[in-house]
């Protein structure tokens, strides 16, 4: 995707005191600022999704549960109302003695079961609680319900729905009853037992949530229908029966297993039932959590991408500043080096001039001495005197040569362009280094192949190039080395100068860096790492090129190509580089 690498300024090893900035600090601060700006909105989005998103998802779940509760409430109420209405109709429609006939009651029960179903038995009970007629599977005729709880409650009401109870066959049932006033003093009840299996079916099939639960409890929290996870019928539910409320309500409770659960409920009017639909918070919030996880993945991926881009941008920016600063330092060093050489030149010229005058006096005095000796008969044959005079004159001549060389060096410190023979320049340079070469037993050969056209440029600079290269060659060689210099004209009108030493060579991996400023393998022995980079710069200024070829432990060969007047006409950017 994005290739990351450490910025260059972090793995350099030269001193940084002269640099304009603390690059590591600058890099870190840019990295920090860019990261904040780029990643901030992402993190805000994540925070928003975590808080506001959660609240809204919770609200949605509660709304959904409340709607579900309302629907179920209507279904169950309808179911009970229907049965109540039917019983009411029957008790009003049939005369009292008709209903008191168990056979007739049996016919009605059959008709009810074939039309509505779910009726287990029918019984007619007089106001004293005695079952005067009964149709159903049990022998309950004349049973007295006077002391039964439901009958006590029932007496004062027009109709009645009982809690669920275990019937004689160990099946959960409810009783629905209606009261009919026969006259001012007398009344009777019609009671039906209803199998709650049909009743339960109302709760289960409509509940599409496999993780949730729908059931009825009575006002004291006893389960009236089976539930998936809150116990079976007639067990105490592990939830707090909520406060009475007219409409469907949703609250969060902790269930028996200690899990947070959404509880939707509604009080069923005219019944002892509370409808409850529950759903664990964990599973209800699942869709939101899935969304959140996806968003989180996107945010994390986005952040990684942003950080990578930020890293690259910051690193590249600082790298560019760093490079510019390095370039500035390099130019500064070059200027310093030039100024240093110029001062050396002035010093050399001054010394040479001052020394030349006394040398001239010595020369004339010794000359006069010799003149007198040779013209005077008295000393004419004193060869010792003559040889002393000759020796003084020869020494003066030697001194003169040295000062002349110094003067010529100083003269060429100034930027002046003249035509020159490269060979002459190299001989000049070798003149400076002759003593050292002799002292170190380095053999120097200089060969010229064919006719060399003259090079037009600044003699001092050309001198400096070869002085640097030959000095480097000397440094690379032990005693008894061999320095071979070859000069020839190339086909494209350039002068090629090859300087080949038998020194220690350059490691292959170092070769690409040798012209870079501050790269030095001689730092221990005082190398600045500037020599070759200055040389390279001067050669470029002169419009030339340099090539290097080296074998470790065998030697190094530098080849300098300089343009001559012939090639200059062809070179279009010649002036711009000067």
């Amino acid at each position: 995707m994005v290739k990351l690498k450490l910025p260059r300024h972090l793995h350099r090893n030269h001193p940084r005191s002269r640099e304009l900035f603390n690059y590591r600090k600058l890099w870190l601060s840019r990295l920090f600022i860019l990261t904040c700006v780029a990643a901030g909105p992402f993190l805000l989005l994540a925070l928003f999704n975590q808080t506001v998103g959660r609240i809204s998802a919770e609200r949605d779940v509660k709304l959904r549960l409340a709607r579900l509760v309302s629907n179920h409430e209507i279904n169950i109420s309808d179911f009970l109302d229907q049965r109540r209405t039917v019983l009411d109709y029957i008790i009003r429609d049939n005369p009292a003695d008709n209903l008191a006939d168990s056979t007739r009651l049996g016919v009605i029960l059959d008709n009810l079961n074939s039309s509505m179903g779910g009726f287990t038995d029918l019984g007619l009970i007089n106001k004293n609680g005695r079952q005067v007629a009964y149709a159903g599977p049990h022998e309950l005729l004349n049973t007295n319900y006077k002391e039964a709880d439901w009958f006590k409650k029932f007496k004062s009401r027009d109709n009645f729905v009982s809690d669920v109870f275990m019937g004689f066959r160990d099946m959960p049932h409810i009783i629905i009853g209606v009261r009919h006033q026969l006259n001012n003093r007398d009344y009777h009840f019609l009671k039906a037992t209803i199998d709650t299996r049909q009743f339960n079916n109302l709760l289960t099939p409509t509940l599409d949530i496999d993780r949730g639960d729908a059931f009825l409890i009575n006002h004291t929290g006893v389960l009236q229908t089976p539930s998936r996870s809150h116990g079976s019928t007639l067990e105490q539910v592990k939830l707090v029966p909520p406060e009475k409320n007219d409409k469907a309500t949703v609250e969060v409770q902790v269930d028996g297993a200690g899990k947070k659960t959404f509880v939707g409920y509604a009080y069923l009017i005219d019944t002892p039932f509370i409808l409850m639909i529950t759903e664990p918070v964990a599973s209800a919030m699942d869709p939101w959590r899935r969304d959140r996880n996806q968003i989180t993945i996107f945010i994390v991926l986005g952040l990684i991408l942003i950080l990578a881009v930020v890293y690259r941008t910051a690193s590249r920016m600082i790298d560019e500043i760093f490079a510019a600063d390095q370039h500035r330092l390099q130019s500064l060093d070059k200027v310093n080096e030039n100024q240093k050489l110029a001062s050396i030149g002035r010093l050399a010229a001054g010394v040479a001039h001052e020394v030349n005058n006394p040398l001239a006096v010595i020369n004339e005095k010794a000359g006069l001495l010799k003149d007198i000796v040779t013209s005077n008969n008295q000393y004419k044959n004193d060869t010792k005197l003559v040889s002393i005079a000759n020796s003084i004159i020869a020494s003066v001549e030697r001194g003169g040569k040295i000062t002349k060389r110094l003067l010529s060096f100083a003269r060429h410190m100034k930027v002046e362009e003249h035509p020159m023979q490269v060979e002459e320049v190299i001989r000049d340079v070798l003149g400076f280094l002759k003593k050292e070469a002799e002292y170190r037993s380095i053999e120097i050969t200089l060969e010229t192949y064919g006719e060399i056209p003259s090079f037009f440029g600044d003699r001092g600079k050309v001198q400096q190039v070869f002085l640097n290269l030959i000095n480097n060659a000397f440094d690379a060689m032990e005693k008894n080395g061999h320095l071979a210099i070859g000069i020839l004209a190339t086909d494209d009108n350039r002068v090629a100068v090859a300087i080949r030493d038998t020194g220690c060579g350059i490691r292959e991996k170092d070769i690409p860096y040798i012209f870079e400023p501050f790269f030095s393998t001689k730092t221990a022995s005082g190398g600045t790492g500037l020599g070759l980079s200055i040389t390279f710069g001067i050669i470029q200024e002169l419009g030339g090129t340099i090539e290097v070829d080296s074998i470790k432990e065998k030697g190094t060969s530098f080849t300098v190509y300089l343009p001559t007047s012939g090639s200059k006409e062809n070179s279009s950017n010649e002036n711009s580089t000067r």
Partner: protein
Amino acid sequence: MKILLVDDEHELVATLAERLEMRGYEVDWSTSGATALEKACQTEFSLAILDMKMPQMDGLVLRKKLEEITPTMRFIFMTGHGSEETYQEATSSATPVRYLIKPVNISTLTGAIDELTNREGSHD
């Protein structure tokens, strides 16, 4: 034929004059441009050997003044300062001049003198 020798270094001019006289040249010398001009007014010199760098009046200025007095005069410059400009200034004129860097070999000097004055024979 007379030669005028001018250099601010007394030891040098005196000795050089003596050596040239030993070689048969007629030489007068001076250590400053002012006295040199006085001598030139009194005597006619056919050649002047001048130091390039002297206090008060340098070789090039002195040459111009001497030429005004004696237009036929020839010149040899001697200098301890081998700078390119002075060399070019000294040699860029219609009349032939010589430019020698100190210390000067006596035979080089006499050779130059003879060449400029077309004198035959060697005195070394």
